[in-house]
């Protein structure tokens, strides 16, 4: 007797949810990213305005001067939703954890010359307050922003910033054998040392910006575009040359993170600028305004970090940033 096994394929009646189908069609099943992120924010039937802000609906496009026909034109090039994001970060966290344990076990901090250690204490450690500010700012963007493709990216970004602030704190603890001396000194520098006050003032002014897209530009485009290449790339190279390669091992995440972040900031700038001339003009205006302000604010720190080369290093970083944003269609 022979048994004939035949394969029977059953085609589903519909492949996608209705709102996903309206956007991407029914030709093939939606990706997890599309299902998780698109059109998650409600758009109608807001019965009451929020008590704390009666001029706006709960989700309101008029909270920014940027106008988009479709707020979902932007898609995260990394396609992060909860699953992919946590998997990617947990892999990186494992590597970082391993590096910290290695440095601790081998007492590598003791091999760094005292001047290099001091340079790290003066420049890198106070940056944890900048990271915390970035966390606040990205939470604020997530709160006021429109379009869940944008808001998921900024919320993940906010969590990353908290993580990076913690990495910096751990470096501060490692260098002193778990005493908080360095962290306390860095806090004092951030609050009182004259070279940090310009930057602190700028970060605190960002806290109270009302237009969330301007905050996005100021924080995620300009401030990060200056701080990360300048301190976590160029300054780290300088420290490594002076015997501080151990520190580069502990801040590897920041370098990787910035390269990854540049991908979505580029995509967001491109999509928003392409939408209309008015958008492009507004973006350029904000970029110019915040570049001027922040370059001036960072300069004293850059000079403290690089000595007489500080201003040149900062100018180069600024040029790189403006060239990158220029490529996305901004006139800067």
């Amino acid at each position: 007797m022979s048994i004939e096994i035949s394969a029977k394929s059953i085609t589903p009646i519909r492949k996608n949810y209705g709102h996903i189908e309206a956007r991407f069609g029914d030709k093939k099943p939606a990706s997890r990213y599309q299902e998780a992120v698109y059109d998650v924010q409600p758009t109608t039937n807001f019965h009451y305005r929020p008590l704390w802000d009666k001029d706006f609906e709960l989700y309101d496009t008029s909270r920014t001067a940027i106008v988009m026909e479709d707020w979902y034109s932007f898609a995260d090039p990394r396609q992060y939703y909860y699953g992919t994001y946590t998997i990617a970060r947990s892999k990186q966290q494992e590597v970082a954890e391993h590096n910290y344990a290695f440095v601790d076990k081998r007492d590598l901090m003791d091999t760094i010359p005292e001047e290099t250690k001091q340079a790290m204490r003066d420049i890198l450690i106070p940056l944890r307050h900048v990271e915390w500010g970035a966390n606040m700012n990205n939470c604020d963007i997530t709160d006021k922003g429109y379009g869940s493709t944008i808001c998921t990216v900024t919320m993940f970004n906010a969590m990353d910033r908290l993580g990076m602030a913690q990495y910096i704190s751990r470096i501060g603890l490692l260098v002193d054998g778990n005493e908080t001396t360095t962290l306390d000194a860095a806090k004092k520098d951030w609050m009182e040392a004259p070279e940090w006050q310009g930057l602190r003032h700028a970060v605190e002014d960002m806290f109270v910006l009302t237009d969330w897209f301007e905050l996005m530009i100021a924080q995620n485009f300009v401030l990060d575009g200056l701080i990360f290449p300048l301190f976590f790339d160029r300054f780290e190279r300088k420290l490594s040359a002076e015997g501080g390669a151990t520190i580069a091992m502990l801040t590897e995440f920041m370098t990787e993170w910035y390269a990854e972040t540049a991908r979505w900031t580029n995509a967001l700038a491109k999509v928003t600028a392409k939408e209309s001339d008015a958008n492009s003009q507004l973006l350029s205006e904000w970029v110019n305004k915040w570049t001027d302000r922040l370059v001036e604010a960072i300069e004293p720190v850059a000079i403290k970090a690089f000595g007489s080369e500080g201003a040149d290093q900062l100018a180069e970083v600024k040029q790189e940033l403006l060239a990158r944003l220029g490529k996305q269609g901004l006139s800067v």
Partner: protein
Amino acid sequence: MSDKKNTVFLILQDNEEARPIIDAVEQDNPEANIQYQPGLVRMEADARLVVNRETVEENLGRDWDIQELHINLISLGGHVTEDEDQIELSWH
């Protein structure tokens, strides 16, 4: 099954990891015939089918090594010409 003698094909598992590759094949080979079958996706083309690293990277949002193709590869037909930037199926 196509009865043409010079047909080349690439079959990948139908999953989230293979999706950016399938999309890349679709973008770079407009004539390719793409069939979704249970559990697998069969991509057929006349004479030539390419997978470009750059297109996959764009879809994926990260760097991609062309060797990662093997993870979700079920079968292929054609002679393989491979370098760091693309994998090409054709009959020599």
